[in-house]
């Protein structure tokens, strides 16, 4: 048993010596070599890391150390890596840098037995030198990622009643398009470098255009875009007021337009009998009222009008036929009381206008007859 242990120890010492010699005359002066190797070894215990297993096996077989074309520590060239997908994250946990299970039987007083990993973990001559952390994360091989496209992202002030579309135009043709998110943000990837017109559109809003430079591997930002609403197309009500008997246009007639909220607009007819209400609200109904003396009151329901449309009305007024009433049947209610002036019992002249602003009861009577 003791011999076996000794022989095993001898083998390990031999291997360790070879290992030390190898590193002593090889890359040991380069601190960056050792650290990543340890890192690679650690990765063998972490199955979640996408690493070539060949590198991870390094401690048990030194031949692997000098062979890998994929030495994780190759920090020599500055590969510009903008694409996160090419970065290999290697765990830095060194706790698992232990000897193989067989080595566990080695007497504890022989610390050199553990040299293969120990040397890698902290080479004596490199102690205290921390390799740049970025080198740990460099890819295992010399991947040169050539970024040939850029991105555009931006923010448009939120609007609630329309979708926002973003078009990337070059020479008048759209090379990319996207619909902005509900909050007005958008991002368009994979745009070739160049100068573009970015066109932002939304229904019922003015088109906004901006010139944007897209560079490879960069994100061009186009923020603070505020869309301006287009003025709603005007909505009008126009009409003509005619006398029912003569068919003549009626001039100077007061026309009232009542909206759904009870708001009143007024217009007077022109010599042509025409009247108009400009820029009335769309999509709501109205009642048009003409209530003037000598004509029967007219109420016309105006159906809701679509934006940009003109409602055309013709209102025919029916004259109040004062003379049509039989003699003695009086006047129509609603007409203006005819003006008069008569003497009273004392000879004092009294006119109807004397009582303006006050109700007056007129009592016609036969007298003593």
């Amino acid at each position, binding site marked *: 048993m003791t011999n076996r242990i000794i022989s095993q120890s001898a083998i390990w010492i031999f291997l360790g010596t070879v290992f030390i010699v190898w590193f002593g005359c090889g890359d040991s002066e380069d601190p960056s070599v050792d650290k990543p190797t340890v890192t690679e070894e650690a990765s063998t215990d972490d199955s979640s890391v996408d690493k070539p297993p060949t590198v991870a096996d390094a401690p048990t077989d030194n031949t692997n150390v000098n062979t890998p074309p994929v030495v994780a520590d190759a920090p020599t060239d500055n590969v510009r890596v903008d694409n996160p997908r090419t970065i290999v994250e290697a765990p830095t946990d060194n706790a698992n840098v232990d000897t193989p299970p067989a080595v566990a039987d080695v007497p504890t007083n022989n610390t050199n037995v553990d040299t293969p990993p120990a040397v890698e973990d902290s080479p004596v001559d490199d102690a205290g030198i921390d390799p740049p952390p970025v080198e740990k994360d460099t890819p295992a091989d010399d991947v040169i990622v050539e970024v040939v496209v850029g991105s555009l992202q931006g923010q448009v002030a939120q609007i609630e009643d329309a979708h926002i579309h973003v078009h990337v135009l070059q020479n008048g043709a759209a090379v990319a398009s996207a619909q902005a998110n509900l909050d007005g943000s958008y991002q368009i990837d994979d745009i070739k470098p160049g100068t573009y017109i970015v066109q932002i559109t939304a229904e019922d809003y003015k088109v906004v255009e901006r010139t944007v430079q897209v560079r490879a591997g960069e994100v061009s930002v186009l923020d603070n875009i505020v869309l301006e609403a287009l003025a709603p197309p005007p909505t009008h009500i126009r009409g003509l007021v005619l006398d029912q008997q003569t068919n003549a246009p009626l001039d100077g007639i007061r026309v009232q337009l009542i909206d759904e909220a009870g708001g009143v607009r007024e217009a007077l007819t022109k010599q042509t009998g025409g009247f108009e209400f400009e820029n009335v609200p769309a999509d709501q109904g109205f009642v048009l009222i003409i209530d003037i003396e000598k004509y029967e009151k007219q109420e016309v329901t105006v159906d809701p009008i679509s934006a940009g449309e003109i409602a055309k009305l013709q209102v025919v007024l029916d004259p109040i036929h004062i003379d049509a009433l039989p003699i*003695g049947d009086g006047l129509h209610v609603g007409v203006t*009381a005819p003006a008069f002036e008569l003497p*009273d019992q004392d000879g004092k002249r009294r006119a*109807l*206008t004397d009582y303006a602003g006050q*109700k007056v009861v*007129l009592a*016609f*009577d036969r007298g003593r007859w």
Partner: protein
Amino acid sequence: MQKSYKAIAAEGAELLFITSDQLAADFRTDFPKLLDPETTVIDAYNATDPLNHKIARPLYYIVDENGIIRWKFLDVRLRGRLDPAKLVEALKGL
């Protein structure tokens, strides 16, 4: 009508009695009696008695503050008179 005059006045209205009969002016009343012997105003208000164009038939109007006729009464009987209570009621309703 004389009895109802206070009630009419209480509604803020004035009562003008209009007739072509000169002698009617002799009746003692609190309200003014206007004389229209030529029936000019009687005709203008179409209150002419169809059977006697020289006199008015009983006919009643309420003219509002703006001079517009808002109410009128004529009895189905040509010479029937108005119950003054109805007039006061009409004034209250205007």
